[in-house]
């Protein structure tokens, strides 16, 4: 069993390895110093997503959303709440599909909000449509292998 978890810095894209017993100690990126998991939802771009998808064994749940999508906007507080509840074991991020239309094609997204859970270089699970905080949390806990 790996006693550490790989996680890509969602700010600079550097891959970090964090001992599992230090996940809750506010680990920072060795390259840029940004906190790796503050329990907050990070807005990311496709380049960061590609790196995190490929490298991370820490579960990453990505909300594909757009500003015109009412259910997406209404789900935002619940998604943030779930990010707090799942830290430090999993991370939550979002991608604006209006700004990055190609990312939707690449990930076969035809409806939003779409939540995709990535771990160990692959898509582990997907949920179409908005969910409340508790359901988001349970979705990650049941579908991903939680570190630590």
């Amino acid at each position, binding site marked *: 069993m790996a006693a550490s978890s790989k996680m890509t810095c969602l700010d600079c894209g550097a891959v970090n390895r964090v001992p599992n017993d230090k996940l809750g100690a506010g680990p920072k990126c060795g390259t840029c110093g940004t906190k790796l998991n503050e329990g907050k939802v990070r807005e990311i771009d496709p380049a960061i997503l590609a790196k995190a998808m490929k490298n991370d064994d820490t579960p990453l749940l990505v909300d594909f959303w757009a500003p015109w999508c009412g259910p997406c*906007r209404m789900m935002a507080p619940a998604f943030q709440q779930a990010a707090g509840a799942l830290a430090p074991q999993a991370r939550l991020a979002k991608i604006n599909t209006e700004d990055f239309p190609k990312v939707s094609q690449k990930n*076969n997204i*035809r*409806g939003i909000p779409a939540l995709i859970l990535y771990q160990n270089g692959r898509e582990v699970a997907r949920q179409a449509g908005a969910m*409340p*905080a508790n*359901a988001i949390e349970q979705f990650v806990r049941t579908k991903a292998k939680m570190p630590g």
Partner: protein
Amino acid sequence: MSDTRHTKVLIIGSGPAGYTAGVYASRAMLEPILVQGMEPGGQLTTTTDVENYPGYTEVQGPDLMIKMEEHARAMGTEIIGDIILDLDLSKRPFTAKGDSGTLYTADTVILATGARAKWLGLPSEEKFKGFGVSACATCDGFFYRGQEIVVVGGGNTAVEEALFLTNFASKVTLIHRRDELRAEKILINRLMKNEKIEPLWDHQLEEVVGDDMPLGVTGVRAKHVKTGEITEIPAKGVFIAIGHAPANELVKDVLDTHMGGYVVTKPDSTATSIPGVFAAGDLTDHKYRQAVTSAGMGCMAALEAEHFIAEQDD
């Protein structure tokens, strides 16, 4: 782990009825708790322009709901992102079990769970939900730029969605099981003038067809309701707009309902068949179903709850 919360007024639902009930109950110093449910903000969050809410010549549905939520919160409503899974109205205080594990107890309950879009119930429809099958044109239309789309339905929602989708799609086929539409005349006129829309009358959706890898819709099979003849239509997106049904799951076995599940209230009142339980908005309104009528009923429910509590205290 389970936590118990008591309130004088428990509001279930977060559309115009729920938030308006929150505003009024808060101002009556009843310290209401509002549990938002599965779709915070309700049906207006899946619309675009709202042109008939007084005070707004034009407002986006989601923006209107954010303002209503802020209003209720500012007046003192405690708004909780939880889902009520089970409601016991057999004795007072009423009890409601939340998905979070919280048990809510309440002297009065205002049911404002609204209505939700109906689905056809086909296995192929379920299979492709999120992968080409949608009930929200404003959310998902963007993903069908330059592609062919099918809309199923014949009422206002179907026509509005078909018109909206022409902003993106190369062609929209509107499948309707009758040979005329039930929509408002102004909408039908717009539809008939739109060259991108082709109605397919007297047909119903038989099956959504698509690929498995990657999962995605490629078309539909529609059946003529009289001859049984099958027409295949290529499409990347299928939008279901066959109407709405009241979200009555919590109460359908304990409260009187009619007209396909709408909760019955007393004349000129939001009182249900159980004293202390009130119903407002699309859960009970089979006739008007407007944001403004729902808001009005939310107000009535809060005032009636206040009156009910005052009577109990006497």
